[in-house]
């Protein structure tokens, strides 16, 4: 049976070499602001940046094998194994970049170049289906700025939830005023009641995940920018508290034996909540995975 049945199996897997270390180093060029979530996948460094290039409005899967992301090793399911996140370490030497909350996510895919100036309902193309978390709860939708906007305008999405029910309608959210590429469009340090909810678009009451997004509706007077709607599965969080110590999390011992599973060909990257600008601030780290 794939997975770990006990602690011995975890140690044995490491001894057998089913364990991977990889480093990462992201150094944004974008000027971010306090309290606004930001997508580190769009920043330079290692792994190389992702620009959400795809046909407008068409679902485009993201995969490690074709798009990169944090390297977590090759596919293991066909060998009878499952892969898990064992440890994460991150640190920054730049005072303005700490504290910083980071969420490691599997970026399942995206709908590219949603036009904020179109006030008609924009239907999205789901001819290509996601290949990971196809029916799982917990898949969230994140709107990422890929061409800057003015901000303040409302929008909502319709989607099929994780139970397969179509026609679900999200809460109405508003576009943030931070316009640099990589900004999470729904994030601004203001109250949720104002429509700025944070990294993910809030779903219809009772829903726990999204299978696909059917349409986007821009309200108000529209705006000038473009954004990508990204389907993501949050996997793990860590907080860099200061520049005087790394943050290290062992997801076996420090997080209730959570050991988040990493699916074959997952595209991994981080979003982050800074307290100021991350421009020029490197964040270094190590990801360690194990499989059995």
């Amino acid at each position, binding site marked *: 049976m794939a997975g770990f049945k006990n*602690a011995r199996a*975890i*140690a044995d897997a*490491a*001894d*057998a*070499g*089913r*364990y991977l*270390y*990889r*480093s990462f*180093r992201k*150094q944004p060029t974008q000027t971010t602001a306090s309290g606004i979530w930001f997508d580190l996948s769009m920043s*330079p*460094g*290692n792994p*190389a940046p992702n620009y959400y290039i795809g046909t407008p409005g068409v679902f485009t899967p993201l995969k490690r*094998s074709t798009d*990169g992301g944090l*390297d977590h*090793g*090759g*596919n*293991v399911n*066909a*060998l009878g*194994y499952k892969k898990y996140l064992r440890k994460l*370490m991150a*640190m*920054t*030497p730049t005072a303005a970049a700490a504290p910083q909350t980071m969420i490691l996510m599997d970026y399942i895919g995206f709908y590219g170049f949603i036009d904020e100036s179109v006030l008609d309902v924009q239907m999205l193309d789901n001819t290509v289906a996601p290949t990971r978390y196809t029916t799982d709860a917990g898949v969230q939708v994140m709107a990422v700025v890929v061409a800057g906007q003015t901000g303040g305008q409302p929008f909502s999405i319709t989607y099929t939830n994780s139970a397969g029910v179509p026609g679900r309608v999200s809460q109405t959210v508003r576009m943030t005023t931070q316009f640099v590429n990589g900004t999470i469009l729904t994030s601004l340090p203001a109250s949720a009641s104002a429509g700025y909810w944070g990294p993910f678009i809030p779903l219809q009451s009772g829903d726990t995940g999204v299978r696909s997004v059917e349409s986007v509706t821009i309200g108000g007077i529209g705006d000038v920018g473009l954004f990508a709607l990204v389907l993501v599965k949050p996997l793990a969080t860590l907080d860099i508290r200061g*520049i*005087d*110590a*790394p943050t*290290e999390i*062992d997801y*076996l*011992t420090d997080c209730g034996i959570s050991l988040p599973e990493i699916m074959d060909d997952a595209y991994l990257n981080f979003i982050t909540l800074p307290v100021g600008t991350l421009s020029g601030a*490197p964040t*270094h780290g*190590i990801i*360690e995975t194990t*499989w059995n």
Partner: protein
Amino acid sequence: MGGFSSQDNMINEVSTGGKFYRSDWQKSTFATTAQAAGLWYSLFRGGGNPPADTILGTGTNLAFQALTDATTNATGIPHGGNVSGFKHLLNAAAQSAAATTAPCVLMLVDLLGFYPITTVTTTGDQALNNSVTIPRYTDGAGVQAFITPSTVMGAATPNIRITYTDSAGNTGNLTPATLPIGNTAAAVTSIVYSGTGSGKFGPFLPLAAGDAGIRSVQQFNLSVSYVSGVLNLVLCKPLLTLPITTLGVTAERDLVNQFMSMPKIYDGACLAWLMLAGANTPVGSALSGHLEFGWS
């Protein structure tokens, strides 16, 4: 039987039995070329105590040479000699007061051996000689590979690929796409395909899907000439990582009380540090620390 049967046994062996060894080390970054932020480096050739190795780049071209703690000119960090099996690493520490050395991430590895490659202008597959086999982790489980110059490389950015036998004995495995890309004019001690952007990995060459280690390497392949220089394809077993964030603050690891760590240090291990430079680091920047071992 190697290892400790219980925590009581460990306490008894270390305290009553005296089966404990402390090794203080001091290594500097390479004396000639500064480190660049975001790249991995080997401190094996850095000066200090133990001194810089002079073995990489020597020997018969393309022929594997094993490394142990007793190999002439291979200057691993001492760990107390053979104990008829293995020791456990109990504690580790590192610090630096050298400007811009922090932040960095250190990785302790057991260097198993290397293939010197002087034919760096040859493109396509070059057959490697495995008359000598890896001296530890002989099935290859957990064994990884990195490539580092012992003579500065020329101005080129070749794709790099190896063909290897994995730890299950499967032959003909290839480095998967996207292939690692060598850095132009890669400096001595740098890991040539580390850095920023596509085709950059750190610190080890990626393996084929599901592979858990390398038993031996049969072919080495450069897509284009590397113009000049000498490469070393090094096989090693990673043992632990140790991040340093701040100058003058010691990074410490208690490997006993961190669940399922206590890495095994086999007899003959040739211990060395790899380093992910977090900042541009001057030549000869000193790092120091200690390792503590126990055994039964």
